[in-house]
């Protein structure tokens, strides 16, 4: 496990994240232009969606897959409740702020998923292509749960349009669409575009993580005054709790270790694209500095640097 952690820590993606983070704290401007950051993010989703679809292409719909989907849905419905309760214990936040944070932790972070799958790949640990679909599925439900937790009594119509807006968030659509295209075109399609979506993938991930590191550090610098010790502990403890819940479900449903490590990573990760935008619309009274700083500044680095190897080690240890 320690060896795993060291290997992860010394991999190029994590080191570029650290470079962005440390350089930014020191005062250097290491962010990418917004247009490029958005495009790289889109590229990552297109690529993992497509790869997942191709992997699924041969296999058709299996019982295992539906079990895993079920596990994802259950997690993204329950984790916000757990987060909401835990926040109530740990920090004097308003109900609305707690609900907004809970939505982030119930949803998932695609780049954390990407980092985990690269780690697994480079260690030769297999996982199923449909795990990407589960990532897509887990993006949204937590938002609805959180609105309920916030006791939101907004007019129905706005709520519905919000659900549409979230489901149609470009990250969800590209991920799902590329998955379907990958499933349709299969290995033949993969052969045609793999020099773009597979070969440079890890390098592009490095560039993107340089930016993410810089953004995370900037977020901490600007947002830390909205955090308190309780919140910071929450940002570190909640991923462990979520990953444990995912591990339990993985055990119950008999998942292989690779899939389980991915599910744990998804559970442990917190959204930084779709959910923050949705919260600004649905719960505008919630302070964005709190949830953005927690999700991007605390939980993302923890998952990237020590979470992923830990989840994998646990999954391999507990599961057959």
């Amino acid at each position, binding site marked *: 496990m320690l060896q795993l952690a060291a290997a992860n820590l010394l991999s190029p993606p994590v080191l570029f994240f650290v470079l962005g983070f440390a350089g930014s704290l020191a005062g250097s*401007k290491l*962010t*990418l*232009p*917004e247009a490029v*950051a*958005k495009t790289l*993010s889109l590229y990552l989703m297109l690529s993992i969606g497509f790869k997942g679809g191709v992997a699924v292409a041969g296999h058709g719909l299996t019982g295992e897959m539906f079990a895993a989907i079920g596990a994802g849905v259950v997690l993204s419905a329950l984790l916000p409740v757990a987060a909401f309760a835990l926040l109530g214990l740990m920090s004097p936040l308003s109900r609305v702020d707690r609900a907004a944070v809970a939505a982030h932790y119930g949803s998932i972070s695609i780049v954390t998923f990407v980092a985990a799958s690269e780690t697994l790949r480079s260690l030769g640990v297999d996982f199923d292509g449909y795990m990407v679909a589960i990532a897509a599925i887990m993006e949204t439900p937590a938002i609805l749960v959180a609105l309920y937790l916030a006791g939101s009594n907004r007019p129905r119509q706005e709520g519905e349009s919000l659900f549409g*807006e979230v489901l149609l968030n470009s990250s969800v659509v590209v991920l799902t669409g590329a998955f379907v295209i990958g499933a349709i075109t299969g290995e033949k399609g993969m052969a045609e575009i793999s020099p773009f979506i597979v070969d440079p993938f890890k390098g592009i991930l490095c560039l993107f993580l340089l*930016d*993410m590191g*810089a*953004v995370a550090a*900037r977020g901490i610098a*600007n*947002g830390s*005054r*909205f955090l308190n010790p309780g919140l910071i502990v929450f940002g570190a403890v909640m991923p462990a709790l979520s990953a444990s819940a995912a591990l339990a479900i993985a055990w119950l449903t008999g998942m292989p270790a690779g899939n389980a490590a991915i599910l744990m990573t998804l559970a442990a990760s917190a959204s*930084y*694209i*779709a959910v*923050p*935008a*949705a*919260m*600004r*619309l649905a719960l*505008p*009274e919630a*302070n*964005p*500095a709190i949830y*953005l700083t927690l999700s991007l500044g605390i939980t993302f680095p923890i998952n990237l640097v020590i979470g992923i190897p830990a989840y994998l080690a646990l999954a391999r240890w507990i599961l057959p």
Partner: protein
Amino acid sequence: MKTHPKKEIRIICELPLAGRMRAHLDRAPISGYTLLPVIGGKGSEGAWSREGLVGDAGQMVIFLIILDEAELQAVLADLYAVITNQIGIITIADVEVVRPDRF
């Protein structure tokens, strides 16, 4: 060249809110609007910058609306309602235009 007085509303608002704002503007008695980019700023919730961001949250845009003084109050009230709970700033200024019938 004769010029004619009009009012200009400028709204600096959060990007996730832009869709709602557009919906309200579509129903308002105006001839159109223009959207301008913002690259950063500082307010009660600290400094922010568009650089490096992937999502819409934490970004802002500017809506610019030129309209007749006669419509100002109604439009203002409607738009103000949209951003009242959100992060954002509304200013109103006097401008002159050449073709008054276009607004």
